[in-house]
Structures are given as structure tokens and as C-alpha cells.
């Protein structure tokens, strides 16, 4: 989230699309309802009429996988009707930038496409720059090659009629949504978006988010209270686990994972440190070398020296273009390339798309370590229905861990607030906190490598591993301090005003502005620097003052980066630093300084020609980007059909599906489009009573009583067609698998009219699994396809094709 939960109350219009907040983030509705009480509008766009829709002022249905068409139509509406916030668009976004001559778009393809590689050469999309490297601009927005005009041209085709033919949304419903949301383009108004996996789990997942980001930039909603682009993250600490880089492609703090193209730290810094020729661009990532050196010092401590490039050589290097993400991981496992496996607090046998392939893969392992609170379908895969334990060699270590209230530490919510939690009780029986488990395991591994030399022992032996308290137990405070970072020697630095600041060896670093590239500071994750300082544990703060009245609560817990509660807040003020909306001022330039939220950098407003900085400080040029030349599938979002879709032709172009997706081709990687055997669109979702795969909630009797069994929701029309009565058992099948479910025949799903064609859609939850409850059914992820977004490789679990028949 660029903003945060409480801030929803400040919104004039909340669009809930690609999420179902009332069911899955119930307490967020507290703030949504407050916005409504204050006169704000709630708009729900969803294939199914949900509990959120039931509370909305405006509801519009759309077929799964057609969000770009829907929102592309909104861009056209905004531009055609002059609903955009002109001053903001001209001054703060890339709309005036001139795009290079090689950029073209034709019939669904951007220029630079290589059919063999299924990839683009992004050099074709470069901006025109002057000799200093500063983008050329036309503030009048008239140049036909400026981003604004190209955007207009790109979405010219997205007429309401065309959009309706793709999405199945009746034109009047489309217009109602467009009018309601576009009204926030007025100066002083703010609209926001609440999205979740309904947008990301698509082969156009990133572009779904981008198309909305473009709308938010056009309407001047980014940086504003009650605005922003807000992902509702689904797990209590999925934000923190991402920040900590439990992902193949990054190191903590969103530093790119090293690959063979950067064998040395010098190479790494050269490649990954962006440059800007514009003195008015803050270009924050120019600080990257400081963050990397400090991270390496946190990893390897004293063993990291300038001479050995702080141990950079000890980090694993990916091959060029090697993608080790989820779907590839389980493909490798299925193909027998993975021998050992840690499933640490996760249940991929139910949560992964094409779960049958995952389950088959688990049987090919030599050993698995499963750390969890409850028995689950992953750790016990060998006794699942259809498995013959005698034929499965995989050894499984099931390690019982402590629950959230049985240990101490912080978690980071969707709004980036890192909140500390305390230990309330001991874990039952022999269960242990995860921290202790990993601490003991690594100690043992270090011991083995010390004793019998093994392969490349340096990173193991040199890993700084002093996170125990005096009793030998894992100590969360020690790690929290390491993540924040230390000064490693006495040092004198300057504050922004130029005054000397003296720091002692062992002091905690008060802000990432003080991190160094020479090894004199350590920091486990630069974005968490200032979370735990000499003044104490900022994440444990519980002070309730709210000076802006906007619900920022600056002294409640701590928020990354540097306790900034609303990102890009420099865009919430005009060139003179005065808020676009004085009633809801996030920051304000007054008497030579900023008041309000922590501003995006210390510089004065942009009107100061010398010291002012462009507002989007994380972008090399400093502007909000409608034109995204960095993504794999194009600089503008374009509608493509899901890999499995109900139509033989994309109504927009000759490209049926995203031309850059990776398609697996093994015997368990089937996918079928327009196949008469699988005629219906399907999507998956969650229910209030169960959480994710249900691993925790399926063991709780009252929650199971309320949602006891897998179900499929389908329209009355489809039920009639298939002779299915409400409450009957049905079989839902896809090219990959089959599940049994109870039919819920509902008016909340309606057939979609795509021009002359009628398309039916169904939906199922993915919270069940064979282990419990009895007769609960199995995971709907047995149906979903293992194809991912070309940028993130997040699987397309939200749009695929199935059949439904009476069981």
C-alpha cells in the first residue's frame, strides 16, 4: 500500500476491484464505512456480487481476466472528458516526456518483439533524452510523440462498446463506474483502489496494477490522503517477508539478486546504480552501493572487508536470465532436480496452482522439512488419497513451531507498519519458536562444516550468527537491531543542515541517510533503518497522537521508509509546497520547513529552482510513470485474454494472449482454450471463516461448522443448462484436475454477454484440503493453471477454463 488502512477514511471514492475486502479484510470495512459516512462512494467491480458489493454504492460485473479492458476504457473516458488533473499530470508525471522514434504499437504488439524468444527488446521503448540524459518534455502535451498523446492513442480503441464486448459489463454499468471514480480528478478530491490477488493472479497481473496506477496519476490521486495504490496483502507478514527478500530475485530492501553479469561488487554497483543527468532528480537509488555494502556487513560481520568486497563473492549468482520463482521451482522438483526441500510455514500442496504437479513433485524428493503448527497436506502428502506410501521414498521431518502469541518479534502490515508483538504464553508441548529452530539448525550446520570441510564453506562459516540471548535462545531484539544497522566505528557525519554528528562504534544507525559504502556501517535491510535506534524499539511504540488529524499516528509502531506513512507525499502539494487539498494536508511547506507526514526527502518544494526536487524520488527521473519502459510485456497495459479463455479471438488485436508469457510444456502442464470440454470461465477466492489454504482454520470446529465443504458458485442459467440443482454435488474439472464441490446456484453470478456470445463463469474457494474436515473436499488449486505473469511469475489462478457436471 502507498497509503495505509486508517487512511481509507479520507477517501472520496473507494474502488474495490480484484479484492473482496468485506470477506477477506473484514476490519478494513470499518474505514471504508467511515469514508461512506463522510460522503465518500464505494464502488465494487467483481465477476461475482460479493459481500463488498452488497455494501457498495455502485456495482459492476466483469468477466475474470478483463480488468485492463475495463480500466483502459476508464483512461479513455478520463482523457476524452478532460477529467484529469492537468497541473499534476504536467508537473509530476511523465505525460510531457517525448518517446523515442523506435516505439510503435500495432495490433497487440509493441515494437521490438522477438517471436522466437517470446520477448521484447526494451531498447525500442526508450525515451528521447537530451545530451545530459534528461528526458525531453512538451508541457503543452501536444507533441504527438509525448507520453500523453501516445496514451490517448493507445486507449482510443477502448470504447465503451468494445470494452463491454470483452468484459461483459453492460455499458451503463461501465459508465456509472467511470463517472463516479473519474470525479476524483478534481483538485482537492482523492480516490483510492483496494486490490488484491484478483489482480495479481493473472498473466497480465502487473499490467492490471499499472493500468490503475496510470489512472491514479491522471487523476492526481497518488501521494494524497485517501488516495494511492493499495494492495491488500493477504498474510500477516507477507509484506515483511517480501521486504526481507524470501524471494529468489532480490536481496533485503529490494536490491537485485546478483547474477553472473556482475561477478564483483564493483560490477554490481556499476550495473545497478542508476544515473540521472537531471540535477532536479533525487534519484534515490544512486545510494544503492551504501545499502549493499551495509547488507554484506550484516551478513558476514568482521569477515566482510573492503579487500574481499565484503564477502560479495560468497553470495550465490544466478545465471543470466535464470528465473527461480515458484512455478519454475516446482517444475524443477517435478523433474527430479530438487532433492531437499524446506516448506517453512507454507502449504504448497494446497496453495500452489496446479497442485497435482506439486504433490507429484514432493514424491520425488529425498527429504523434506515441514515446519508448521498443524498437520497439513504438504507434510503428510505421502498419505494423501491416491498416494501409495510404500512407493514414496521422501523422508519428512515435521517440526512443530510456536504460534504468533508464543514468541516475540515484529510483523509488517499491508500499510508498511511494522508492529511489535509480545510473547503471551509458551508453545505447547515440545513446539519451538521458528527463530530457535533456524538458530539451532544453522549452528549444527556450521559445526559440521567446521569439523569436516565441505564444499565452499566460507559463506557458512562466516555468516554472522550471534542472535542468541544469554540463555542460548534466539533473541528477536538482536536481529531487529542488526536489521536496523550499526555504526561499526567512530565516525563524524553531517546532518542535512551541514552540522557535525558524532557517532560511536556500536551506535544504532538513526536513518539510512547515514549508511556508508565503505564498510563502516552494517544494515540488514536499509528500508528498515530507523526502526530500532539508540532511542529504542520504534516498532513497539504505542503513542496515539495524530497531529494532522488524518489518522497517520506517527508514534504508533513504525513504518518504512523512515516512518513515512503516505508514500510519494511530495505529490500531494503544489509547486510551492501547498497542499492540493488543504482540508486533508499530508504535508505542507510552512516557514521554510515541511510539516505533517515525513516528506519524501528533505528538499524544499519544486518552486525552488535550485534545491527543489521532482516528487517521485524512487524513479531515476523523478516523475510518476504512465509509460513503463521497464516491464517485460510492454510500456502500456494492453488487453490480452487469459491463457485459458472462452473466446477464440481477442477483440482488441491479433494477439490472443500475452505474447511474453512462459508456457510450460510437460505432461502435467496442460492448458486448453476454447475447448468444448471446458467451456466455463472459473476463478478462485476465499471465505471469511477460513484463512488461505485453511491450514489453521480447518482445525477450529465453529469455523468449520459455518463453512464445512468445498463449494462452487454458479448462475441459475448455467445450473439450468447443466441440470444442476442447488445443493447437489458436482464435479468441477479442468485440463489439470478435478474437484468435488457442492453447487451453490446463485443470482450473484450472471452469464456475461460478450456481443452475441454468452459466457458463463463460476467460482470456488481454495481453502479446503483432504486432511480435514472429513467430506470437506480438496483444494481448488488442483484446477488452476501453472502459468505466470511474465514479470512476476505469479500464477493465473483467477481466470481459467473448467467444466461443471453433476457428480
Amino acid at each position, binding site marked *: 500500500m502507498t497509503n495505509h488502512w486508517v487512511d481509507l477514511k479520507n477517501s472520496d471514492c473507494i474502488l474495490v476491484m480484484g479484492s473482496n475486502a*468485506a470477506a477477506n479484510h*473484514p*476490519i478494513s*470495512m*470499518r474505514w471504508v*464505512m467511515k469514508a461512506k459516512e463522510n460522503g465518500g462512494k464505494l464502488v465494487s467491480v467483481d465477476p461475482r*456480487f*460479493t*459481500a463488498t*458489493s*452488497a*455494501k457498495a454504492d455502485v*456495482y459492476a460485473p466483469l468477466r475474470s481476466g478483463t480488468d485492463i479492458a475495463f480500466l483502459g476504457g476508464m483512461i479513455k473516458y478520463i482523457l476524452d472528458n478532460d477529467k484529469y488533473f492537468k497541473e499534476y499530470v504536467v508537473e509530476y508525471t511523465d505525460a510531457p516526456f517525448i518517446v523515442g522514434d523506435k516505439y510503435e504499437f500495432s495490433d497487440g504488439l509493441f515494437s521490438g518483439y522477438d517471436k522466437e524468444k517470446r520477448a521484447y527488446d526494451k531498447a525500442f521503448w526508450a525515451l528521447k533524452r537530451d545530451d545530459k540524459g534528461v528526458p525531453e518534455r512538451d508541457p503543452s502535451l501536444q507533441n504527438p510523440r509525448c507520453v500523453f498523446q501516445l496514451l490517448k492513442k493507445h486507449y482510443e480503441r477502448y470504447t465503451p462498446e468494445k470494452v463491454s464486448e470483452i468484459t461483459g459489463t453492460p455499458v451503463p454499468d461501465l459508465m456509472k463506474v467511470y463517472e463516479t471514480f473519474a470525479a476524483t480528478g478534481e483538485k482537492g478530491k482523492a480516490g483510492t483502489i483496494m486490490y488484491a490477488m484478483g489482480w495479481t493472479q493473472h498473466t497480465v497481473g502487473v499490467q492490471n496494477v499499472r493500468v490503475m496506477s496510470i489512472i491514479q496519476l491522471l487523476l492526481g490521486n497518488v501521494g494524497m490522503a485517501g488516495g494511492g495504490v493499495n494492495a491488500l496483502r493477504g498474510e500477516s507478514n507477507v509484506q515483511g517477508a517480501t521486504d526481507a527478500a524470501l524471494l529468489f530475485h532480490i536481496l533485503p530492501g529490494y536490491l537485485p539478486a546478483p547474477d553472473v553479469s556482475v561477478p564483483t561488487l564493483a560490477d554490481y554497483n556499476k550495473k545497478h546504480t542508476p544515473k540521472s543527468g537531471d540535477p532536479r532528480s533525487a534519484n534515490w537509488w544512486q545510494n544503492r552501493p551504501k545499502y549493499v555494502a551495509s547488507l554484506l556487513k550484516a551478513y558476514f560481520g568482521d569477515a566482510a572487508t573492503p579487500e574481499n568486497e565484503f564477502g560479495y563473492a560468497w553470495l550465490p549468482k544466478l545465471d543470466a536470465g535464470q528465473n527461480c520463482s515458484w512455478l519454475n521451482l516446482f517444475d524443477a522438483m517435478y523433474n527430479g532436480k530438487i532433492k531437499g526441500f524446506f516448506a517453512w510455514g507454507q502449504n504448497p500442496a494446497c496453495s500452489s496452482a496446479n497442485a497435482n504437479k506439486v504433490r507429484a513433485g514432493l514424491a520425488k524428493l529425498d527429504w523434506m522439512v515441514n515446519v508448521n503448527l498443524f498437520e497439513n497436506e504438504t507434510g503428510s502428502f505421502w498419505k494423501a488419497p491416491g498416494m501409495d506410501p510404500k512407493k514414496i521414498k521422501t523422508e519428512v521431518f515435521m517440526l512443530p513451531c510456536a504460534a504468533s502469541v508464543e514468541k516475540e518479534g515484529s510483523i509488517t502490515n499491508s500499510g508498511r507498519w511494522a508492529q511489535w508483538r509480545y510473547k503471551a504464553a509458551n508453545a505447547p508441548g515440545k513446539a519451538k519458536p521458528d527463530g530457535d529452530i533456524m538458530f539451532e539448525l544453522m549452528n549444527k550446520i556450521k559445526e559440521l562444516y567446521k569439523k569436516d570441510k565441505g564444499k565452499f564453506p566460507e559463506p557458512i562459516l562466516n555468516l554472522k550468527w550471534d542472535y542468541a540471548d544469554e540463555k542460548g535462545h534466539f533473541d528477536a531484539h538482536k536481529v531487529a537491531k542488526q536489521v536496523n544497522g550499526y555504526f561499526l566505528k567512530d565516525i563524524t557525519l553531517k546532518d542535512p543542515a551541514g552540522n557535525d554528528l558524532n557517532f560511536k562504534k556500536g551506535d544504532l544507525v538513526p536513518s539510512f541517510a547515514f549508511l556508508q559504502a565503505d564498510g563502516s556501517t552494517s544494515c540488514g535491510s536499509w528500508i528498515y533503518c530507523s526502526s530500532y535506534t539508540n532511542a529504542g524499539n520504534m516498532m513497539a511504540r504505542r503513542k496515539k497522537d495524530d497531529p494532522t488529524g488524518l489518522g497517520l499516528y506517527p508514534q504508533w509502531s513504525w513504518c518504512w521508509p523512515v516512518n513515512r506513512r503516505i508514500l510519494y507525499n511530495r505529490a500531494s502539494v503544489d509547486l510551492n509546497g501547498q497542499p492540493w487539498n488543504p482540508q486533508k494536508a499530508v504535508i505542507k511547506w510552512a516557514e521554510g520547513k515541511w510539516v505533517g507526514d515525513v516528506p519524501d526527502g528533505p528538499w524544499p518544494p519544486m518552486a525552488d529552482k535550485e534545491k527543489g526536487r521532482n516528487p517521485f524520488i524512487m524513479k531515476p527521473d523523478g516523475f510518476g510513470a504512465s509509460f513503463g519502459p521497464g516491464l517485460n510485456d510492454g510500456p502500456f497495459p494492453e488487453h490480452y485474454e487469459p491463457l485459458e479463455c472462452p473466446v477464440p479471438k481477442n477483440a482488441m488485436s491479433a494477439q490472443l494472449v500475452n505474447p511474453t508469457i512462459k508456457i510450460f510444456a510437460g505432461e502435467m502442464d496442460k492448458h486448453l482454450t476454447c475447448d468444448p470440454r471446458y467451456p466455463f470461465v472459473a476463478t478462485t477466492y476465499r*471465505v*471469511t*471463516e477460513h484463512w488461505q489454504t485453511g491450514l489453521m482454520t480447518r482445525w477450529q*470446529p*465453529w*469455523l*468449520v*461448522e*459455518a*463453512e*464445512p*465443504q*468445498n*463449494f462452487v458458485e454458479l448462475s441459475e442459467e448455467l445450473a439450468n443448462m447443466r441440470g444442476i*440443482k*442447488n*445443493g*447437489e454435488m458436482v464435479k468441477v474439472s479442468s485440463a489439470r484436475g478435478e474437484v468435488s464441490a*457442492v*453447487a*451453490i*446456484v*446463485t*443470482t*450473484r453470478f*450472471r452469464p456475461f454477454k460478450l456481443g452475441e456470445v454468452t459466457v458463463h463463469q463460476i467460482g470456488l474457494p481454495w481453502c479446503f484440503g483432504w486432511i480435514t474436515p472429513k*467430506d470437506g473436499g480438496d483444494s481448488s488449486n488442483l484446477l488452476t493453471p501453472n502459468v505466470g505473469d511474465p514479470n512476476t511469475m505469479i500464477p493465473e489462478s483467477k481466470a481459467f477454463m473448467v467444466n461443471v457436471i453433476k457428480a
Partner: protein
Amino acid sequence: MSEGYSILVDTSKCTACRGCQVACKEWNQLPGVPTKNVGSHENPQELSAATWKILRFSEGKQPEGQAFWHFFSEQCRHCVSPGCMEQSEKDEVLQDEKTGAVLFTPKTKDLKYEATRKACPYDIPRKDEKTGALVKCTMCFDRITNNMEPACVKTCPTDALEFGPREKILDAAKKRVAELKKNYPKAAALNADDVRVIYLVTDDPKTYWKFAAGK
């Protein structure tokens, strides 16, 4: 007789989280029963000795074609003149003077089950097969006589349930109906003069639950 208490159920604020249904079981120590999904999120489907409160889900199309999904947290209405009580000859069914709660005593095993159930305009009474007695919501009699709110009211996260002296609740109902009428002309407080559990609806009561406004 004192004015007693009332519960206001504002369906316009309910998001169907089912906290009330779970809280009722928790406080009254009613077991979770094995259920089957029979084509609805409504589970369990029937009031019973183990279930005194059910969140009813009801959906359909408005005449203009727009979908609706109504949530209705069903329970005993604690009528001012209870139909069930008319079946009572001695003191099988009691109406508490102070609170207004309508209570089934163990002696209800002597009542005719079918007739008593029929006499209830809202189809609430159920028979406990083990003891033979009739059972239903007690308005959390043990809680309210100890100065505590009913368990369902206490748990509601969106303040859709409110408990208090009847006069105050009637007043709140009136005010809320007036407010809701601005956007929902059909907004109404169902049978407010006759029941102590007053439901606020924004649509035809039949579209919430077949017995929302009585048989």
C-alpha cells in the same frame, strides 16, 4: 411491567462475518454440529437445540435487475405478547418482568411441540430431542441479568447489533429508519411495537428471510 430491554439488528451494517453466530455458541456452550453445504453459505440450515441463532443469506434481483444479497441474523424476537406463551398452561413459558425476555423452562417438555412452534409467528421454538424440552435464544438471560450485553451484541464488529433499554432502542430504531429512508425508501423497523428484537431492513422483509416479518 417495566419497559425491559430490546435488541436492534441493523441489517444495513451487517457484513455477514458470522461473529454473532459463533459468539452465541461460545457463550451458551452449544457444540459445533457436523454440517453439509446444501447450496448456501447458510450453515447450519436450521435452528436446533445446538443452534439458536443463524445468519441467513438471501439473494436475488431487484425489479430493475440489480443484484442484492441480504444478511439477516435470525433469532427469537422475544415478543411483547408471545404466541408461544399462549400455548403455555402453567409456567412452561415465562416472560421475565424486568427484562422482557421470553424463556422456555424445562417444563416445556409437556407442551405440544408442533402447536407451540406453529403459534410462533417467527417459527423459532425447537425441541431438544434429549430432554424433550423446547429451546431457543434466551436473550442471554444469564448475562443481561448480570448487567452484561448479550454475547452476539458484544461481538459484532460493525455495530450492526445494539442492546439497551427498550425505550432507547425504539428511539434509535426510529432515527436510523429516518436516516436510511433517504437512500432506501423501503427502510423499516419490523414489528417494532410487538417484538423486542427489532430488525431494520432496507428492502421488502420477505427478501431477507421468509419469516423476517412473521409467517
